[in-house]
Each structure stands twice: as C-alpha cells, then as structure tokens.
C-alpha cells in the first residue's frame, strides 16, 4: 500500500498548499487525482514520491512509515517510487544523452551491468530509436524527451509509479502511446499508479478510479475520506 494520511505540505509553513489530504493506493491499482491548476496536487505527488517533506501527516509505503524525505529517505524506499514530471525539459539533465538519462538510476544504484540490457528493452517499448538515444535533450522534441523520462522512471522497476501531469505538454498520439506504456508495465509488474492531472476525460479513461481534489482534502475536518481499502467515499 501507498498511504498518505492527513498530509499538510507546502512552501510556507503559515500557508500550506496541501491541507490534511489523505489518499491510499493499493498495489496494482490505478488512481487518478483530478484537480485544477495550482491546487497543490503536484506538491502532494512530490510528497508521495518522497521528494518533498510535509509539515504534518504520515506517509506509509509498503507498510513502512516514511521517516525521511529526499536524501534522508533510504535508497530502497526512494527507488520504490518512480516519478514522471510534467515538463520533460526541466526534468532532464541537459548534459546527458537520452541513453545516459535512462541509465542514470541504474548507475546511481550501482547496477551498471544491467544498463545495456535494460536500455535495449525499454527504448523500443517507449518508442525511442537507437539514433534518438544518442541525442541530447535539446536535440529532441518534448514528446521524445518525455518518452525517455518515462523509461527512466521505469528502469528500476518501481512498485509505485507517480505521473504528475505526464501528458499535459504532449499531443494526443504521444499521450496515448505513453499511457499504453504505463498500462503494459502495470499489467506485467503489478505496480500501483497515481496519475495526477486536470484532464477528467483522460484520467477517467485511464484509471480504475478517479478522485477529485475536494474529495480527498478536508481542511479542518479530521475525518479520513479515503478508506484503507481504496474505496472512494
């Protein structure tokens, strides 16, 4: 399970963006989180990906309570969650080729030996040709770069995948292709998916269930909106 309970987070303690939000996600389940822009859903996604320390609330990942965020989280916990961000330009180190970009998590975790095999398996799956793999981010389109970013998020075979507005910058066919890649990974690995976005049509087609931001955030009200079984109330 990936459980967020009454999480309050933000960038200014006096005015948190996310107030007492609770969410829970079962293995193999796909959950769409709908919200207007600026509501704090990306911040919540960063909390769930262990990239942003909340002011209050708890995150439990596979039964283990999360005690530290960013570098303070144990590597095994951090790498259990794969993340795809909204803007591929900003989430790719401009000095790396797409091949290095995809291989980066393997190198960082000391699994250099698997690089060739994993990249060779993932690149065709996300639709990148060998020629594209040798290019740098500024030499490819947003869609191609986002394909590489998705491959990077999948390269360590995470048990959880968080897609934060993954397709907001992309055209319909690339969106369909990336969603298909995520879905086939989920079928094959049984990973849980949290898809954050503002496109109701897309999320309702894509995910097992979709919740609105209002339903899971309960400012001032200390009740748990999402049951542990993942049933939306």
């Amino acid at each position, binding site marked *: 399970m990936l459980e967020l309970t009454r999480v309050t987070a933000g960038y200014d303690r006096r005015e948190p963006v996310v107030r007492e939000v609770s969410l829970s996600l079962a293995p193999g389940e796909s959950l769409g989180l709908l919200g207007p822009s600026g509501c704090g859903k990306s911040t919540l996604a960063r909390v769930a990906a*262990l*990239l942003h320390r909340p002011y209050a609330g708890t995150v439990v990942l596979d039964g283990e309570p999360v005690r530290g965020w960013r*570098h303070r989280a144990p*590597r095994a916990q951090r790498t259990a969650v794969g993340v795809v*961000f909204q803007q591929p330009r900003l989430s790719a*180190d401009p000095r790396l080729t797409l091949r290095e970009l995809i291989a980066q998590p393997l190198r*960082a*975790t000391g699994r250099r030996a698997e690089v060739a095999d994993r990249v060779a398996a993932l690149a065709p799956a996300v639709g990148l040709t060998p020629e594209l793999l040798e290019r740098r981010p500024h030499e490819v389109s947003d869609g191609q770069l986002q394909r590489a970013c998705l491959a*990077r998020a999948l390269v360590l075979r995470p048990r959880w995948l968080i897609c934060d507005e993954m397709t907001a910058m992309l055209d319909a066919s690339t969106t369909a292709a990336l969603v298909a890649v995520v879905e086939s990974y989920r079928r094959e690995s049984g990973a849980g998916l949290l898809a954050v976005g503002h496109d109701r049509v897309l999320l309702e087609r894509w995910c097992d269930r979709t919740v609105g931001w209002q339903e899971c955030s309960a400012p001032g009200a200390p009740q748990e909106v999402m049951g542990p079984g993942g049933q939306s109330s």
Partner: protein
Amino acid sequence: MAETDFGPARRTTRRIRVTASAGIVAAVLLAVLLVPPLVQLDQQAVDLAAKLRPPSWQHPFGTDDVGRDLLLRCVYGLRVSLLVGVVAGLTATVIGTAVGALAAAFGGWTDRLVMRLVDTFSSVPHLLLGIFIVAMFRPGVGPVIVSVALTHWLSTARIVRSEVLSLRSRPFIDAAISGGASRGRVVVRHLLPAVLPQAGLAAVLMVPHAMWHESALSFLGLGLPTHQASLGNLVQTARGSLLAGDWWPTLFPGLFLVLPTLALAGLAGAWRERINPRRRSELML
C-alpha cells in the same frame, strides 16, 4: 531581427577582437615560456655606462636607470605578473566555488552565516584588505598570491551559490534523487558540471584582474622585492626617470600590462557570450 539588422557587422568586429586577443595571448605565452630558456642574457645585468638609453636596435625598449635592457626586463616582469595572476586567479576561483557550492548545498544557517561573512569581506575595499595581508609578510611572490587570492573569491562564491541554488530546485535533481542518487553523486554528476563553465570563466576573468593587483601592490612598494622584475615594479622604478623626460621605462612596461590583460579579458568575454547565449541575445537587442 537584430540578427539581420546589424548582427553581421557586429559579428565581424567581434571576430577581429577575438582574433587579435588570441594573437596577443599566444605571443605573450610564447614570450614568457620561450624567451628565458632560449635567450641566454642576464636580465639583472647592470651596465651603468649604458643607463637610460632610448630605444635603439641594440635595446629595442631602451634601458633603465641602471642600464638593464628593458625588453628583457619586461618579458621577465610579465612572466612574474602572469604567474601571480594565474595562480592567484585559480586559487580564488577554487575557494569561491567551494564556498559557494557548500553554502548552497547545505542551505539554512550555514548558508546565511557564510553569505554574511562574504558580505563583511566585500564591505572592505579589496585593495585595502590585500595591502593589509601583504603587509604581514616579507615581500615576495607568495604573499602577493595569497593576498590577491584571499580577496578575490567573493564574487565567484556569490555566482556559484546562486547558480547551485537555482539548479538544486530543478526537477532533474528531483529525478536523480528519486532514481536513488546519493548526495555526492548529485553534486559531482549534476551540480558541479553545470557550474564549471561559469567557474572557469570566472577564473579566466580573474587572471588580468589579479595581474593588475600584483602591479598595484608592487607599485605601492608592498608587493615584490624591488630587484625582482614585475610589471608593477618596473613602472614604479620608472617614475623618477619619467619626471626627467625619459618616457620609455614607463611606456613599455605599461603596454606590457595593458595589452595582455585586455586580450585575456577579451577572450574571456567571447567565451562568456559562447556559454551564455541568453546574454548574447540580450547584447544583440
């Protein structure tokens, strides 16, 4: 639009400037590296019978007040000034990069403390601080380098800190952390490579600046010992002769200081435009 209007003309002048700068820098490097080993003349050789001779075929730059050949003195002086400039510039850049990167990487109180320290140092004119530092030692190359290096890391620290701060919050750092990268890996693989061009540029820009400081300190009689040829010392000892109407002992060391430093600064400027295209496009507008 600016590209088509006056871009090409400007680009041509820039090319001329860069070529001239590169030529001067190359000539300077050749002179300081090759002349001393190849020309077996003693730059310290005193010939009182030939003192203060104007430029001639025998002494192209003339001779100084004790009859030493000025061309040779200038080359040796440039060698010393360049050595001081390069070593002090590099040291200052390394200190600045380390301080700036650490302040930004740790953040919080460390950052605040370090940056207030930088402010404090910056509030004192750096030549004054430099004079204070050299005054504590016997004259020599070492103290001058220490003095210039210790007073010139501040701006580099500021630049590197702001650069690292802006990089640190980019999603690609988040992606690296999420991919299991350790703190050290993030710094070595993602942050440092991004700031190195800026730091390298700061180092190159610092070299001519440091040369001027060496000259200023020597001119004030605080830098290198007077018998050692350095551009500052040469100008300093030439002051007396200038009043008597002998212009060459001032002019040639002065040119030796101005031309190479301008050339180095010109090259560094061209490099800055190259690695920072946004600045280039701003200049074009």
